[in-house]
């Protein structure tokens, strides 16, 4: 499956975090690479939405939606915002 990028989760992040996030800064918890959300690799068709670092491929964020509840895992990020 081919990755898209963080532009594709702008709506999802706004829904979860309450603000526009595609231009927010991130730091990978694995390798320390700094990128804006829009530049991250996003897999939309995994079980849930999976966001990976473009440098080291670490998983940075996972979103799983069950009915109207979105479960959010941001543990792969050292920094966001």
């Amino acid at each position: 499956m081919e990755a898209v990028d963080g532009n594709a989760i702008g709506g999802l992040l706004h829904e979860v975090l309450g603000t526009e996030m595609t231009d927010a800064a991130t730091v990978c918890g694995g390798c320390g690479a700094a990128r804006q959300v829009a530049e991250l690799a996003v897999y939309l068709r995994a079980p849930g939405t999976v966001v990976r670092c473009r440098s080291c491929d670490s998983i940075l964020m996972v979103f799983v939606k069950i009915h109207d509840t979105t479960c959010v895992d941001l543990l792969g990020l050292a920094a966001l915002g």
Partner: protein
Amino acid sequence: MAGTALRRRLSWQVAKVRAETVETASVRTLTLDVPDWPGHQAGQHLDIRLTDEDGYVAERSYSIASAPGEPVAITVERLDDGEVSPYLTDELRAGDDLELRGPIGGYFVWEPENGGPLLLLAGGSGIVPLRSILRHRERTGSTVPVRLLYSSRTLNDVIYRAEFDQPASGVEVIHTLTRSQPPGWPGYARRVDAALLAEVAWPAAAMPLAYVCGPTSFVEVLSQALVQSGYPPERVKTERFGATGGT
């Protein structure tokens, strides 16, 4: 102003299709009446949600094709195995309802004060947000010079062709047709790569601002080529829509 827009709650709402425009055999533009629309920036997108009779929900993102201040419009390419696009291109008619939320995105956007010169690189329906940027430039009276390099499979696949046949002052439109070309075709006839970019892109010394939108592989190759040719990474904005379309 931006702060107000940023903190606005993003809610699903029901829009109405005002008009549909045939762009190519597989591409339609839908002009929408959106009751609660705060205005958008050039380059932003919106999310569409379709709900099946049994409750199955499919969501997709589509770039906004119109400039800020114009009625909201999206341009949709029909993907034969798609869950959403065939409904939008084949079933939906003027007067029908459509559920959406937006505008979304603060990264792949352009305002006149961001300046240029602008290098716009489009692969297929990746042209849509770039068209919004071009219309915004014209409507705001910006004189920022623009080069648009637009890759399509054939001449019949060129979206907004009539508009690009008569570009605004200061806008150069350079086409490449990768699959087949009409007799006497004056444009390029190959895939965009670093060599083609070297022929048409502004030199890095001009401090250009680049927007690259298209299939993932198109964006990967070209954004890397631009950075290698000296464009600062932060002046190369990218939007990837995967192998088979989408945004």
